[in-house]
Each structure stands twice: as C-alpha cells, then as structure tokens.
C-alpha cells in the first residue's frame, strides 16, 4: 500500500526539551572511535558533527511509526542523512526538534519518505537542520 500523501508538508509538534550533557558528548565521541584527546578539553567541548542524530532520530520515529502514514516498520532502511549546522552543539544546550514531512514519494516501487528536522534551542535559536531519507521496498501485491 502506498504511503499516505496527506502527510506531505505536515509538521509535528516540537519534542520535549533535551539538555545536552558534557558526559553524553564524551560518551558519543568514544562510541564513534574518538580518542580522549578529542574530547577532554572540557571548556571547549563541542559535539561531533553527527551527534544531533541522538535528538532527530527519536523525533522522526514518531512520524515514521505513525499508523496513519502506512510505512512498513519492519523493512525500512535509512538511505541518506544530512546535517546542516547553524552553530555547534555544546554542553548545556537545551534543544527541541520539530519534524516536517518534506517528501512522500513512490520511486521505482519503493516508498520514500523524506523528513526535515529542525533542531533549535528552547529560545528558538536555530542550531541544526537534519534531513533523513527513509526507503521501504513495497511488498508485491
């Protein structure tokens, strides 16, 4: 069954605020192969370029798993990811994510969902824009 194109352009409510912790950044750096030298100068600790996925992915799950959309949750694949940083993410940032459905397409028999996630501070300062493309091969009917 094709995706519900009524979702195109829909904007989901902002997520609950998430406070970025210093130790969370360090944990992320180590988990992605960074060495302590990368992350130990505490006074200028900056999150790595893909850290924002910690916020955007869970926000996007709310859209992907919305029963009205019709995405097959068991077979979806994350195809593309892009982050555009308006400024670095640093400890103490309190951030929310607002997800917009930027594309609902049928490409070569695959359902293709494009989501645009705006990461901003609770004071509405833009921090990062994430774009995720999710692909799901459609079952033969």
């Amino acid at each position, binding site marked *: 069954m094709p995706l519900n194109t009524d979702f195109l352009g829909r904007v989901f409510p902002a997520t609950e605020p998430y406070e970025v912790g210093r130790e969370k950044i360090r944990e992320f750096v180590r988990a*992605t192969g960074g060495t302590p030298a*990368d992350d130990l100068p505490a006074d200028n600790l*900056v999150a790595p370029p893909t850290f924002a996925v910690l916020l955007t992915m869970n926000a996007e799950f709310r859209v992907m798993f919305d029963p009205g959309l019709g995405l097959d949750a068991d077979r979806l694949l994350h195809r593309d990811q892009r982050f555009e*940083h308006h400024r670095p993410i640093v400890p103490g940032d309190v951030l929310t994510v607002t997800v917009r459905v930027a594309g609902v397409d049928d490409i070569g028999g695959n359902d293709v969902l494009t989501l645009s996630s705006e990461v901003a501070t609770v004071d509405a300062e833009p921090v990062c824009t994430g774009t995720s493309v999710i692909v799901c091969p459609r079952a033969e009917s």
Partner: protein
Amino acid sequence: MSAVAVGQALPELRHRITRLDLVRYAAAAGDFNRIHWSDRAAAAAGLPDVIAHGMLTLAVAMRAVTDWAGGHGGVLECAGRFARPVVVPDDDHGAELVVRAVVAEVLPGGRVRVDLTVTCQGQKVLTRSRALVALSSQEE
C-alpha cells in the same frame, strides 16, 4: 595547516567495528534497533548477519574530517548515503571501515568541501558523502 588545495587527500582512517562497538554506539546514540545487535532480528529482516548502524559509519567517516580539521566545531555540513550494509560478525575481528577523503573544492571564507568514501572489504558502504568545513579558525 599549510595551504589546502583541491585534490589533496586527507589521512586515511581505518576503524574496526565489533559487536561490542555496536552495543556501545546503540547506547550512546539511543538507537536500539534490533538488527544492530540481535542475530534473530537481522535474519528476520533478510540480512546475512547483524549490521552496523549507518549513522555509526557516517560518524566514523566524519572523524577523518575532524581529525584533519583539528576539532568538531568546524563542520558546517555533513552528509552520506548508506549504500550497502556493514555486516558485523560475532567474532573478535568484526568489520573494518576504510575512510578515504579528498578536498573537492576550496571556497571563500576559509571553507572547503571534502568528499568521502567508506569501504568495507573493498565494497563501498557509504557514498555521496561530503562535508563542508570551516578551516579559518585554526588558520588564525
């Protein structure tokens, strides 16, 4: 850093991923999709074995850029396509990622575009990967 020129290769980065690394990344990124740690879930999804998180591959790729640029803060944009799954067997060797990056464009304002490719066992697993990096802060 001396002058940066188009075509300049960044130092190659090799990074080995084992099952333990997948568990560590799952916790760090809050991504608990079962295909990244359960043989049963991977098989049910039609995969040959447990696979790495695409975002772990992209994070490792970007480390080649941030190691070269001297910090995380200079990366203005990063992107990639997860072209092929990185299969991580349950052994002591896991899977080795090889990240190759090259300066593709030198832009005004001390910025450069870096194009990246990540391979695993000789096959491209991350394609269309690029980073826009501001180098100006460290050149002062």
